[in-house]
């Protein structure tokens, strides 16, 4: 990105920050980091209150701004040991690394599905954390951040957080242990759908599969009578109401069990364990896309291409901007199909789309038109 592009981007960012709504609990106890060339060029910053933070963003306007997941007595002190660590939010970073710089955008919907499962199945149901202590934000690029701020979880150390990540990722999950033969003649006793954790999820998942696509488990279950008899057993924890042999049945559940953990936490497991991690400030702008790391109230309805684009007045959403592409860009499914564009194409786009390509480094400013 050349200097003129960066200046324009900063101008647009600054006007957004004048009115942006931040919700940063215990802001004064957090360390901040800012970046222009990289995501973090400087850290150990701290602010006394939200107004001071806003003033800083309006006056200095970095392309990236992050805050610590941790709370400190002296957030501005360095080195780290002098900060006096007092606890940290448990943060999960979900995204997908795909081929090419634009490849991941095609998978945003599947990452969103994982976020919903992570929050509902794991954080709320298994971990028992109440909804008011969970905040979900778009990352501003190709994923989501889930912030858990339950006071009982803040003091957890790195190893303990690792254990939570392993649980979510299903590391060491051996679903065959859920099944035991009991009685004479031997019945296969297994999980019931009303149980918690992976056991309940496996039972519910099996029933769902039987109802939606029974042939996947076995051709036997395409017959309604066979299927219903088997399901009635599962509901009581008895998995024997079928002519399938127990071992055969259990091994047929393998693909279903493999789908129970949350896959997209995998790539960024280190984020959760890092007790001094700096994470993008929710509702700040991602300097690689110009999209807002939007705080999400209703994840089911959230669409990044509609809701995270900077459309606010003053945010650059008004008028068109003329850009020239400096490389070939494949078609991207945003809220409308964008592209494909060829190198040296010159065209006027609504400002939030134009900014996206400029910040991505695929285009450069050719003079505003709107």
């Amino acid at each position: 990105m050349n200097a003129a592009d960066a200046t324009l981007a900063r101008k647009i960012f600054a006007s957004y920050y004048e009115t942006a709504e931040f919700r940063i609990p215990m802001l004064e106890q957090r360390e901040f980091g800012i970046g222009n060339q990289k995501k973090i060029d400087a850290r150990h910053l701290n602010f006394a209150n939200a107004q001071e933070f806003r003033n800083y963003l309006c006056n200095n306007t970095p392309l990236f701004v992050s805050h610590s997941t941790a709370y400190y007595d002296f957030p501005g002190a360095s080195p780290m040991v002098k900060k006096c660590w007092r606890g940290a939010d448990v943060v999960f970073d979900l995204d997908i690394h795909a081929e090419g710089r634009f490849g991941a955008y095609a998978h945003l919907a599947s990452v969103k599905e994982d976020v919903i499962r992570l929050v509902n199945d794991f954080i709320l149901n298994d971990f028992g954390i109440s909804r008011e202590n969970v905040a979900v934000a778009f990352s501003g690029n190709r994923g989501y951040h889930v912030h858990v701020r339950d006071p009982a979880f803040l003091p957890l150390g790195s190893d303990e957080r690792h254990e939570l990540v392993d649980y979510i990722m299903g590391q060491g999950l051996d679903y065959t242990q859920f099944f035991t033969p009991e009685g004479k003649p031997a019945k296969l006793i297994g999980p019931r759908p009303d149980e918690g954790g992976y056991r309940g999820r496996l039972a519910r998942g099996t029933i769902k599969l039987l109802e939606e696509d029974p042939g996947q488990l076995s051709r036997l279950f395409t017959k309604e009578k066979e299927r219903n008899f088997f399901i009635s057993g599962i509901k009581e924890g008895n998995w024997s109401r079928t002519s399938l042999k127990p071992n055969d049945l259990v091994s047929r559940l393998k693909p279903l069990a493999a789908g129970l953990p949350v896959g997209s936490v995998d790539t960024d497991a280190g984020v959760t364990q890092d007790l001094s991690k700096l994470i993008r400030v929710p509702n700040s702008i991602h300097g690689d896309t110009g999209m807002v790391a939007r705080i999400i109230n209703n994840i089911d309805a959230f669409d990044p291409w509609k809701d995270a684009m900077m459309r606010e007045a003053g945010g650059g959403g008004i008028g068109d901007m003329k850009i020239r592409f400096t490389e070939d860009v494949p078609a991207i499914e945003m809220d409308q199909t964008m592209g494909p564009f060829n190198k040296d194409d010159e065209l006027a786009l609504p400002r939030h789309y134009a900014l996206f390509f400029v910040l991505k480094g695929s285009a450069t400013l050719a003079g505003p038109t709107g």
Partner: protein
Amino acid sequence: MAEGLEFALRYPFCESAKSALAGMDLSERIVDLAVERLLKALKGDKSAKMLLHDSDRKEEIASFAAARMILGHLRNSYLTNAFAVNESKRVRDCLDKDDERTVDAVAAQFGIATANEGRKLTVALPTYLRYSTRNPHYRLINRRLVRGRVEINYEEKKRLIEEAVKKHMESVPLVKDPPDMIKAAGARLVAELPKTESRVLGTVKAGDHPPCVMRLLDEMNKHTNLPHQARLYLATYFLAIGTSEDEINRMFSMLPDYSEKITRYQVGHIRKKGYNVASCATVMTYGLCCAVCRIGSPLNWHSLDDSRKNAIRERGAGGGGAP
């Protein structure tokens, strides 16, 4: 009656011990008992004395506080961890003999509150995470976990308390300017410590090993008490890369509960039986994996080129600046 002098004697870290000692001053006798207590820890001796008089009991309780003062003054991790391991094992023996009410009173000291749900006990998830050992039996994935409550049994509850005691003992507040008696006791103890400890890891640590092995060696360097699976993993790994049994024994001497006889026997047994090095998948289920190497077996580390190793090390470095 849970909270009497006998209770304070067995569990001298509890609040009731502090009130039992109200008005008592530090004396040569108490410091001597503290030194004795620490020397017993170095030998792994967790036996308790028969004390008939209340005054003797009070001195024994006070010796625990004095031992902590000596540790806070010395800041010697080997001694501190040896003390933590020995005291926690001693406490476990007491818990096994005491009734449920007493066990609950000790548990309450560490905020371990269990609830009865049917025939099972449950404990809050953060408490469970903090005080369960990193061992496959306690992996969260193998537990029933419903709405933030983890199912455990009574034996496991006592194990959580044992770990809580150990953690409590491992963190000793710094004692900046202790009385002369404490300083002198510290000097006596230092003379009893193994001399070579800082050089022990020299040869094995100088080698080039996967991140999980390096991390365990770092832990060992700090005299952390490693779980059984970690020890087994290290022994099989170092035997497989051709390290001598003597060197492996020397390495394990860093552990706070090291016994040369037991270690020699076990390392020799592992070699004779030809146990395989755990695969990465197994290392992961042990909860010992700390990087994304994708090499299948830790031994494959040695066939990677330097750039790949560096990339893994950088990616694996999640922490940094942790408290």
